[in-house]
């Protein structure tokens, strides 16, 4: 079937993230404005400037993996196995033992950094005990494509698989690229998502050096404050989210529950700086405009935007300007915008997928989740950020923005399913 003749819908969701170990508990926490941020427990923070993060407490990979398999995977891949197990079950799809059907399902999974825990562990072993003691699984644990690779092994996904590594836009790219595979008629179903687990001393130190992280150590739950005048950087989070994308006819034929339709995908590059967004947000705006065009929508059609909203001074100011450019000043002034990173922290390579999931749930339940810790308006951030309290409202079309170091800009648009 010709390109774009096929429509793509979301039929399954799964997640582990700082707000919850499944979709509904995470969504309930996001709606009620719970912060997932706290003091870092993963390592001794005496040497790092930032001492807070949004960790997943008590994650047990053995809920999803046999012991002999779990120990061969980095934490980030374990997260993705968990979210994907949930999502496939939610969609009512299981390809294990069905090698014929398995060729009609693929996986595209984003990761920013990959298996950082395993990288550090391997390097420590090298330094402390010598080259001969470096574990033979070090490479397979740390490579950033292993979430996609292992998901294909664990769940028997034999179609196209790929890994997107566009930093904090990685899993938004994964969802957009996966949708394209279905639109083009390559396969009927795609597992799409992302994962990250880099709350390690090395990464915190490095992000501190680049001045990206909040240092509001004394008030962890108030540290991630996107669009607020007092914001001072992002808060690292960890976790994974998986969306099952499916050809709409395929989903209808099997009577699947449809959460939303994927209608728009846009991306652009700032071509400007390794960390900073291009001032004025022209690049970010072009990603949004491209997604609108792809969806056949006007800026005024967008009811809700799940912003990238990192809580860094530069991102939130620039994204605000970009939304005005892309939607037009009038539509920008009325659209409900929130940054759920205020609660989840920044999942980096996992952020786009988690936020796409929350956007889809916002459509399903007719509720915009809040931006928490919004106390003091910033003159440069003068739009409606759904401050502090969720807002019941009809959401027909939701946009989810993700921007990554390197200047990668991605916008996705989801629409309510046709009745």
């Amino acid at each position, binding site marked *: 079937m010709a390109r774009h003749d096929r429509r793509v819908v979301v039929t399954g969701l799964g997640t582990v993230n700082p707000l919850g170990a499944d979709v509904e508990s995470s969504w309930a926490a996001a709606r009620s404005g719970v912060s997932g941020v706290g003091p870092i427990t993963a390592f001794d923070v005496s040497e790092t400037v930032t001492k807070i993060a949004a960790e997943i407490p008590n994650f047990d990979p053995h809920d999803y993996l*046999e*012991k*002999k*398999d*779990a*120990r*061969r995977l980095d934490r980030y891949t374990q997260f993705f196995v968990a979210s994907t197990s949930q999502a496939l079950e939610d969609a009512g799809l299981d390809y294990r033992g069905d090698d014929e059907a398995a060729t009609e399902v693929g996986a595209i999974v984003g990761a920013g950094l990959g298996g950082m825990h395993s990288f550090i562990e391997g390097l420590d072993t090298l330094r402390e005990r010598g080259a*001969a*003691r470096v*574990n*033979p*699984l070090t490479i*397979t644990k740390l490579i950033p494509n292993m979430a996609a690779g292992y998901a294909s092994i664990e769940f028997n996904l034999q179609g196209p698989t790929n890994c997107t590594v566009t930093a904090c836009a990685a899993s938004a790219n994964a969802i957009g690229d996966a949708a394209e595979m279905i639109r083009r008629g390559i396969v009927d179903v795609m597992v799409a998502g992302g994962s990250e687990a880099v709350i390690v001393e090395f990464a915190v130190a490095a992000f501190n050096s680049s001045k990206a992280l909040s240092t509001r150590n004394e008030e962890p739950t108030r540290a991630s404050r996107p669009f607020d005048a007092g914001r001072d950087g992002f808060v690292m989070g960890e976790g994974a989210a998986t969306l099952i994308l499916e050809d709409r006819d395929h989903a209808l034929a099997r009577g699947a529950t449809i959460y939303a339709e994927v209608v728009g995908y846009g991306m652009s590059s700032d071509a400007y700086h390794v960390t900073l967004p291009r001032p004025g947000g022209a690049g970010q705006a072009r990603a949004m405009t491209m997604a609108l065009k792809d969806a056949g929508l006007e800026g005024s059609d967008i009811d809700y935007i799940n912003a990238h909203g990192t809580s860094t001074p530069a991102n939130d100011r620039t994204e605000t300007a970009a939304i005005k450019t892309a939607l037009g000043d009038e539509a920008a002034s009325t659209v409900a915008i929130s940054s759920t990173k205020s609660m989840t922290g920044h999942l980096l390579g996992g952020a786009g997928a988690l936020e796409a999931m929350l956007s889809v749930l916002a459509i399903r339940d007719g509720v915009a989740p809040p931006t928490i810790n919004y106390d003091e308006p910033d003159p440069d951030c003068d739009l409606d950020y759904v401050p502090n309290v969720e807002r019941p409202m009809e959401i027909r079309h939701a946009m989810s923005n993700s921007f990554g170091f390197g200047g990668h800009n991605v916008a996705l648009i989801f629409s309510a399913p046709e009745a």
Partner: protein
Amino acid sequence: MERAEIESKFTELLVSELGLDADKINPGARFEEDLEVDSLGVVELLMALEDEFDVTIPDEEAENLTTVGEAIDLVVAKLA
């Protein structure tokens, strides 16, 4: 070190280092076919054995190991 002690430590290593089920481990068990230990797992096991028993097992000696019993024999010989 007595052979029984070596066997017992060996089993502990297979459980702790490779995550294997203790019930399946016996001298006749084959690494690949019975225990699903692949080539990477064998390398992990050899490293663990070298650390635990303070022996050196060159690759050419390791290549011939197919069962738990053979690996134990090798360690016993090294410690003799």
